[in-house]
């Protein structure tokens, strides 16, 4: 496979991963501003199809990234790559934790919406939970940081 193809695969994976993460973040932000459980349920449900997109994008970017690094003889112990690996690990772990909490919030919102509930203090509390907000924000920051590391290679 030529270097161009490796770069193409790496970039397509990166675009899918970052786009999915940004879209999920935007939907999560919109859910934060919604007050009705039905609104929250719709917005958080829209995040679901993005999860496989983010996963496939991440794996594709990593797979082609390693192949590209090998082809271009890039030292895998470079600081910018080590920081990238650490951020990827952070995204994997924190993404699973925050994702599980958001799934529970969505399920609660769906149940309440089915019951015709117009407002829910519990859903609002779960969405505004400081720990969950920090975890979600850290995912976006880590994603942007990875892009910056890839682009600037400090």
């Amino acid at each position, binding site marked *: 496979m030529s270097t*161009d193809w490796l*770069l*193409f695969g790496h*970039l*397509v994976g*990166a*675009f*899918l991963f*970052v*786009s*999915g993460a*940004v*879209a999920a973040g*935007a*939907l999560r*932000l*919109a859910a934060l*501003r*919604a007050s009705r459980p*039905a*609104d929250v349920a*719709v*917005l958080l*449900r*829209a995040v679901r*199809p*993005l999860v496989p*997109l983010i996963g496939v994008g991440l794996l594709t970017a990593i797979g082609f990234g390693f192949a590209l690094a090998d082809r271009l003889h890039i030292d895998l112990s470079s600081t910018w790559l080590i920081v990238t690996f650490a951020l990827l690990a952070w995204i994997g772990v924190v993404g699973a934790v925050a994702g599980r909490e958001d799934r529970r919030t969505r399920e609660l919102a769906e149940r309440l919406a089915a019951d015709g509930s117009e407002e829910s203090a519990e859903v609002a509390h779960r969405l505004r939970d400081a720990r969950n907000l920090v975890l979600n924000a850290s995912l976006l920051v880590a994603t942007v940081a990875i*892009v910056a590391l890839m*682009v*600037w290679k400090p």
Partner: protein
Amino acid sequence: MTFDDWLLALHVLAAFALVAAMVLFWVMIVAVRSTDTPEATIRMAPVAKIGNAAAGVGGIGTIVFGVWLAFSVGGYDIWDGWIIAAIVLWAVATGLGGRTGKEYLAGMKKAEELQAAGQTGPSAELLALNRTQRGLVLHTLASLFTLLILIDMIWKPGA
């Protein structure tokens, strides 16, 4: 880092914003396909605003920094075939994106009209507008043209 490196970095970051907006619009297109009430349609408005902002930043950033790079980087000229092709593809993708937005805005406007008239129940007309086939085709084409830009950027045919 040189000035050109910065230009390239900003060009690539803008491209990420543009593709993120396209993916966000795909999510919205899928979500509204089963939406037949004014309330549920209007619910998507804040998400559309975020998408429009990302598309604006990404669209303007890619073309401005891209053209700047073409003038700044030695070895490339603005009249190189692959750069002209990229500009044409960008213009087509932007035009298609704009028309896609207008198609889906019709559903949003209808939802607001229905809500203002106190009609909160399901509406077949609203569902038809939200399921616009024309909008789906336009966004598919815009996505394909964006993919072609990426291919053009990597292989740089004729360079």
